[in-house]
Each structure stands twice: as C-alpha cells, then as structure tokens.
C-alpha cells in the first residue's frame, strides 16, 4: 500500500520551488536596495561637492559667503581633537581590557563592570554631551576647549575600545602565557612582553575604527557649545576650536543654496579622512594580525 501519492507531491513541489525562487529574488532586491542607498549617497555628494574642492577651500577660514568659505579651522580642529582622544581613550580602554582579561576574578564585581560597559555602549552620544557639559565644561572649568571635547569623546568611544581590546587579548592563546610563566616570567612581564605584542594589531585596528567614529560625531560637540565659525587656529589644548562635522552642520543648516555645495565639499573631506583611517585599520589587520 502506498502512503504518499507521487503525483500530488510532484505537483506541489513545483509551486513550492517557484515560491522559493520568488522570495529569493525579494531577498536579493532588499540586499541590493541597501547597497543602492550607499551608491546614491556617495554619487550625490560627490557630484555636489567636487566643484567647491580647490586649494582655497582648504586654506580659507569659515565665512558668511559661500565662495569664500573654507575648511581650514575645522580640519585642523578635528586633527587636534584626535590627538587628545587617541591617547586618553587608548590608555583607559586597553588598561580596562587588560584588567578584565588578565587580572579580574570571575565574580559579581567583574560581571558588574562588564555589564556596565555594554550598557554604556548603548547610551546615546548626546547624553555624553550633557555629561561633558556638566563635568568637564562647568565643574572643571574647561569650557569649550579641545580638552573638554576630547575628554567627552574619549568616554564616548571607551566602551568600543575596551571590547575590541578584550577580544584581541582573548585571542592570544593560553599556551603562550603558560610558556612565559614556565620560563620564570612574572605576570606583568608576561603581559607586556608576550600578550600585548601579540594583541597590539587587533587593539590598534579596533581603536582606529572607534576613533573614526569620534571624528564623525557631532551631537556631543553641539551640546558642549563648540563654536562653528572661527577665524583662528587653536594654539593650545585649552583654546576654542571647531571640527569638520560641526562646520558641515552649520553649512547644511543655512538656507542659501550655495552653502549646500559647500557642505557637500566638507562632507567629501570628512569622508576622505575616514576612508584613510579605515584603510590604515584594515592594513594593520591584514598585515600584522596573527591567527592561532
């Protein structure tokens, strides 16, 4: 006796396979749409902005007139800001990661720090701006300086750097540490001479990616009240400054149409900076990272 009627199965199979094909096409289109959005965004900005990219654009300060507006102060300001964020966030981030991976015992306190870090990563950047405004700008009297903005941004990207550094340190195999202990090295010697050298490519890659996020960030700086149009370059960590995203924000807000093109030109400079940083990160990852 036959339980399955072959003809019915064959008939249904045909339609099931067709439905499969149909949905495969839908899924493919959805994926392409996401990529398409990126292409439109890039093409649009390049076509709007390239006309304004010339030497004057890089050597002029901000201006009320579109044709005289330049990005000098913003570009230099962004680079200064990076010079504060990079050391502060990396020292704090890598230190925390070493503590959590190498020293911390598995207990409630460690779990608490770990949970705190993952929650901190989900706090909106504008809330970090409020923190910076109260603590750094007002309580520590740092005002609208590079230092106040740099410290605020360091705290913002700290969770990202900690997680990246933790992963890099965790990827160093246990055998290497044990071999080091076996040779009579102390814990700190093992960390500085065995674990960190092996983990440094991963740490650097993660840190540069986090830093590029900080460079593109605008909201906390707006809350700190960082000025937009500056006619001078910062001369110390405590002087006022402006950054690329803030300058772009100001241009984009202006009603005159010419400023849209200036904003697009500014975006090209910002994106170029990010592409350079990301390429360095990818280069380090591909060139130096070891797989165990």
């Amino acid at each position, binding site marked *: 006796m036959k339980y399955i009627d072959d003809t019915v199965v064959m008939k249904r199979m045909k339609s*099931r396979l067709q*439905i*499969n094909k149909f949905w*495969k096409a*839908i*899924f*493919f289109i*959805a*994926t392409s*749409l*996401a*990529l398409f959005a*990126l292409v*439109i*965004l890039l093409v*649009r*900005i390049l076509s709007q902005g390239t006309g304004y990219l010339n030497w004057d654009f890089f050597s002029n300060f901000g201006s009320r007139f579109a044709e005289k507006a330049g990005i000098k102060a913003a570009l230099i300001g962004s680079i200064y800001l990076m010079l504060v964020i990079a050391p502060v966030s990396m*020292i704090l981030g890598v*230190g*925390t990661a*070493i*503590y959590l991976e190498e*020293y911390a015992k598995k207990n409630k306190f460690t779990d608490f*720090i770990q949970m*705190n870090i993952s*929650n*901190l990563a*989900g*706090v*909106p*950047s*504008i*809330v*970090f*701006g*409020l*923190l910076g405004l*109260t*603590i750094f700008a*007002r309580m520590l009297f740092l005002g609208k300086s590079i230092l106040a903005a740099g410290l605020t941004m360091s*705290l913002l990207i*700290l969770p990202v750097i900690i997680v990246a550094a933790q992963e890099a340190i965790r990827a160093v195999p246990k055998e290497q540490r044990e071999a080091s202990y076996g040779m*009579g090295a*102390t814990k700190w010697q093992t960390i500085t001479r065995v674990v960190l050298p092996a983990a440094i490519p991963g740490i650097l890659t993660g840190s540069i990616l986090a830093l590029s*996020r900080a460079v*593109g960030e*605008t*909201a906390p700086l*707006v*809350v*700190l*009240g960082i000025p937009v149009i500056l006619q001078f370059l910062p001369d110390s960590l405590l002087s006022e400054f402006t950054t690329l995203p803030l300058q*772009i*924000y100001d241009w*984009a807000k202006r009603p005159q149409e010419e400023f*849209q093109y200036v904003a*697009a030109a500014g975006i090209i400079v*910002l*994106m170029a900076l*990010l592409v350079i940083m990301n390429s360095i990160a990818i280069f380090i990852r591909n060139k130096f990272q070891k797989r165990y």
Partner: protein
Amino acid sequence: MASQGLEKEQSVQQLIAQSRNKKGKKIVEKLMPLILIITALISVLTTIGIVFTLIFETFEFFQRVSITDYLFGTEWLPFSGSEPLYGVLPLVLGTLKVSVIAACVAVPLGIAAAIYLSEYASDKTRRIVKPILEVLAGVPTIVYGFFALTFVTPLLQQLIPSLKIFNALSPGIVVGIMILPMIASLSEDAMSSVPNSIREGALALGATKLEVSLKVVLPAALSGIVSSVVLAVSRAIGETMIVSLAGGATPTFEFNVTGSIQTMTAYIVQVSSGDAGYGTTIYYSIYAVGFTLFIFTLLMNLLAQYISKRFREEY
C-alpha cells in the same frame, strides 16, 4: 650577570629566586593591577557621572516645573516668554514617529538582507557585501542628515506635494537606512550560528531553501534577530543629527508625518546651539529631556540583553 652567577655556582632556581626578590619588580607587580583597576573604574565612574548629572539637574528642573505637567502635558512651548509650557509628550511623540518609520524601513529590509546573506548568497558574495554594509554603518550621521534634507525630502515632495520641508517622514526613512546595516549584520550573525546539520536535516526531508530559512533557521535565530531589532530601534531613538537637520523644530502632538516635528534629541541640540543662559529653566529642561531619553534607551538595551540571554537556543 649570568656569568657572575655561574662563578658562584648558583643553580637556575636560585637565579630565578634572586631576580624575583628584586625590589623594583615586586613593586611593579603589585602596583600595576591597582593602576589597571583604576582605569577599569573610569567606565563605572562614567555611568555614575551620567546618572548623577542627569538626576541632579533634572531635580532642579522639577523644582520649577511640576512632574505631572512634564510627564502628561501635551504642549511643549519653552520659549513662549510669559507662560512657558513644559509637557514632554510632543517631543516623545516626535521621537516615536521617527523611530517607528525607521523600523518600518529597516526591519523588513534588514532581515531580508540577513536571510539572503546567510542562506542564499555564496561565500564570495557575502565577503563582498558585508564590508559594504559596514561602510554604510560607518557613515557619520551628519552626512545622513545632509542627505535627508537635500535629497530625500525634495524627492518625497514630488510624490507627496503636501510634505513640508521639515517633516517626520524623510528623517524617519534615512534613520532607517542608517540602522539597516546593524539589523542585517547582527541578524546575519545570529542566523549563521545556527548549525548546518539542522539545515541539512530539513533539506533532506524535502524542504525548499525558503522553507528551511523561514521555518527552521529563523525560529532558531529569533532571539538574536529580535535583540538586534531592539538595539537598532534604541539607536534610532538616540539619533540626533539627522532629525535636527531634517525634522524641524516644531514639537506637535499630532500623528501626521508630513509636518514639522521635534524629537527629544533635536530639542537638546536646539537649546545648546542657542544661548540659553546657565541656570535658566530652559537650561535645566535639556537635562530633564536627556534623562527621559536616557531612560528610553536604557530600557531598550536591557530588553535586548534580556531577550538574547533568556531565549537563546544553544547548540
């Protein structure tokens, strides 16, 4: 050193013991963990700093404005000189409008992209597409804001003539594009971690790829997918620059999406870019709004963590 040691005919063990007893080294071994623990505590201090800053300044705000007026008021008019009104609901509604539109764009597209990448695409395609999605995730939000204001809004205005220059629809769609890579990438991770043996079992029973994806892989990866959606929506709620540029500055308590709105984040930006003097009620109001925003995103993040922990299928 070593030759000296050998002259005295010391064993290796003694040499090790000697070097262990060196004073400087001992101090370093003791001191470093302490320094490291201090760096680890900075992250905890940051959280404490955020919570206390928000609570103290919000408390100051509630000395001047009653809590019930704030929580249930439907008019947000802080700048009307004689009788300012601080009802947060219009700001919350503005935020929710943008987030819901963003989710409507990003959730179907993101999950569809994740299914395609995880179940249908070849290894080669996946290796090309995933980094491109990461690029999309790395574009600064100010760039998306500019894109919304100068491209998406004019485009939508041709389709919907009644659309204002500042509206909820355009920033909503663009925030959706912004969070799409996050949903696609995290959901793809969740789906690829479903073991192949389960897929092969279903295929062997005669299921098509679609049936395997929807009836086997999707349910198995559901906790990861749902938590990625919750995380992405939390990101949309906290998004600032896109809504500041393209959303406008008119807090309204209406449900239409074609008119100008204001979100919680956009209000904070508006006050900060103006000159609200330190100590005024408006100055304190940004902390109250920031606190409200913080609570929203914190709850979403905790929910995402809970979902991914509680409902995870272990293989």
